[in-house]
């Protein structure tokens, strides 16, 4: 096993390295401060206090009331709860954009809901959303991701809310903001939505913890019932260390966001420009002004991404394509299909994504390895 430093990590949209401060914040709760926060003794109250303080921190970053935060076990759980839980509570059905993460898309499909077309850049098509809401007056929840996990496209949630106000005034708006925390000020998103999902490991926190923001009037049936934690909204013993670490990671992400973006955006530009300059047939999937600063999704002509990723892996460069299936195979991207990207380009789709630990050396190494790999893949193809 190579040491982490031996990797060139260009896969921050998959997961981020934990911020050292977040690791430090969670460690006491994995050792001496192990109490169950639902207990009644002082040892338990100490853990409870840590959760309450974490709740205050994340509520401040998100721009909501602490009581509106529901800690969950993952972003997926938060998405499932918002979509399925609100339909279970209010009846009707759900609608979402066609490029949602599977954690939303599969919920909507499961209940026979509606998917809404997107533009070539991957933004929800507001005219299509209007048409859907007019055609399906039983839609009670609409889910539109803040930032797409594959291509990085930003959705205008204020505009979505405006359409809903006109055509489905009673429907709730959920946003999967899992990919947004590093790049967008969440305080600017929250006022437009009823539900918002986050996942700690996408912004320097640990895996296995996330949160759902459920605004005061956003009713939903809980996914997990039992001990009644989180004000009866999410039962199950709190992941105290995970929650504390998530809060610390989110606080730091928010405090450093502007500076991080100022540093990372030029690195992303250097990566994409370098790929375009050094590898013929590279297409930047989404224009830079439509997506977040860490996203560098490209489609490369004449190669298959499974082959390219194998060669990158051999060179210890970490990147990815679309989501992997349960068996670990690459699935054709539903996101690119919905955006209308040509089939031959979809085959060569690769997602590079940068984050707070990315360096110029990472980017340059990535360009060099991709250029070599693509050249080799094309050469073999031509001669065989």
């Amino acid at each position, binding site marked *: 096993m190579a040491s982490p430093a031996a990797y060139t990590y260009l896969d921050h949209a998959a997961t981020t390295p934990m911020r050292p401060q977040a690791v430090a914040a969670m460690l006491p709760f994995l050792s001496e401060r192990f109490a169950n926060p639902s207990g009644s003794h002082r040892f338990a109250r100490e853990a409870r206090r840590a959760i309450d303080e974490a709740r205050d921190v994340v509520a401040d970053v998100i721009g909501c009331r602490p009581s509106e935060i529901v800690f969950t076990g993952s972003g997926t759980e938060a998405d499932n709860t918002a979509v399925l839980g609100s339909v279970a509570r209010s009846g009707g059905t759900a609608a979402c954009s066609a490029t949602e993460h599977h954690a939303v898309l599969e919920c909507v499909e499961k209940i026979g809901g509606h998917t809404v077309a997107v533009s070539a850049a991957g933004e929800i098509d507001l005219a299509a959303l209007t048409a859907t809401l007019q055609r399906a007056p039983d839609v009670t929840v609409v889910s539109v991701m803040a930032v797409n996990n594959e291509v990085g496209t930003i959705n205008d949630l204020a505009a979505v809310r405006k359409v809903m106000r006109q055509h489905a005034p009673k429907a709730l708006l959920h946003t999967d903001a899992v990919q947004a925390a590093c790049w967008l000020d969440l305080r600017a998103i929250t006022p437009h939505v009823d539900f918002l999902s986050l996942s700690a490991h996408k912004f320097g926190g640990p895996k296995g913890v996330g949160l759902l923001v459920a605004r005061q009037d956003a009713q939903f049936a809980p996914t997990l019932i039992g001990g009644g934690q989180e004000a009866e909204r999410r039962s199950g013993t709190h992941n105290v260390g995970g929650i504390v670490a998530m809060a610390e990671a989110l606080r730091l992400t928010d405090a450093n966001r502007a500076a991080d973006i100022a540093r990372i955006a030029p690195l992303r530009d250097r990566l994409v420009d370098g790929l375009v300059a050094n590898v013929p047939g590279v297409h930047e999937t989404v224009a830079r002004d439509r997506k977040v600063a860490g996203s560098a999704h490209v489609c490369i002509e004449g190669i298959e991404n*499974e082959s390219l990723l194998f060669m990158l892996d051999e060179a210890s460069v970490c990147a990815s394509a679309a989501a992997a*299936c*349960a068996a670990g195979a690459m699935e054709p991207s539903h996101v690119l299909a919905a955006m209308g990207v040509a089939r031959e380009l979809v085959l060569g789709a690769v997602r590079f994504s940068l984050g707070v630990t990315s360096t110029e050396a990472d980017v340059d190494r990535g360009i060099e390895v991709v250029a070599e790999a693509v050249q080799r893949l094309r050469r073999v193809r031509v001669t065989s």
Partner: protein
Amino acid sequence: MALSGGVDSSVAAAELLRDGHEVVGITMRLWGGESDTGCCSIADVDDARRVAQQLDIDHLVFNFTDDFNKHVVDPYVQAHRDGLTPNPCIECNRHLKFDRLSERADLLGFDAVATGHHARVVQRDGVWFVARGEDPAKDQSYVVHMLPQRELARTLFPIGHMTKAQVREKATALGLRTAAKPDSQDVCFITDGGGRTAFLGSRIPFRPARVIDAVDGGALGEVDALEMVTLGQRRGIGLPGGGPKRYVVGIDHASATVAVGDESLLLCDSLAVRNVVWAHQPVAGPVAVQCSAHGAAQPGDLARDGDDSNGNHSNDNEVVITWSSPQRRVAPGQSVVFYDRSNTYVLGGGIAVG
């Protein structure tokens, strides 16, 4: 190394490592639909990955579902619609394992592709051949008969020299988690629950057919699905038990009629084979011929279609076998494989015309 998650490919990977090869395990995801015994179930991919971890080799999953549908599943369904009895495992080997995977292996700079088939690759006088595996009961040379020289030169069957018992012993000795895993059976994309009938029934319309006596033409009954009837079949044709054994001896698709009769009506003196691929070059003369995955080879004489009295021939891809003694007719669509007279080396093979 193609790792299916079964015991054969697990031990094959271990054999390669022992021989000093640098090995990467590849599991091909082929079938996106329901599966219980197939090599694409999540449990099997998990087994493959865990074996790779035990052996400390890299493991990757390649998604070839589109190619599998195109080259294996769709033709399988179409063949049934056309009244043929296809062999999808052979088409999978032909188009996926030894075409798509080996092409990918080339692309990625690998020198060879290995699988856990019970067969051997041998070189005789500078020519590569598939030879039968060590274990006659498990021999799979029939299903890999189509490999041309180019493929054979870079194909390894690391357990071909072992019996199944030896493979299991080795797996146990190495502590491989697949040591006691049952052998896979049947077609990987067809579930035990639904079977062929459910799989095909949801994809093609079944036609009911009359069952008649082959000799006097008298009506004997009816079957629900002509597409499910195979030449030589004895059960499931709606005939009462008792009496002499009766077989399907003729299927007429145009009139949707199945003729049944005693075994003598199935026997014939020759067999026409099309779409023949040769291991090295076309051959003629005495051969041993195998017509099903687990059937015994029978002696016959191979003549290429269109041979004239001067020995010139017009078409290498169509041949006729003249049996040394009458044999049952072979269901059209089945693969027919020719071995040398010693019944050891694959010379070529094709598809029975019937």
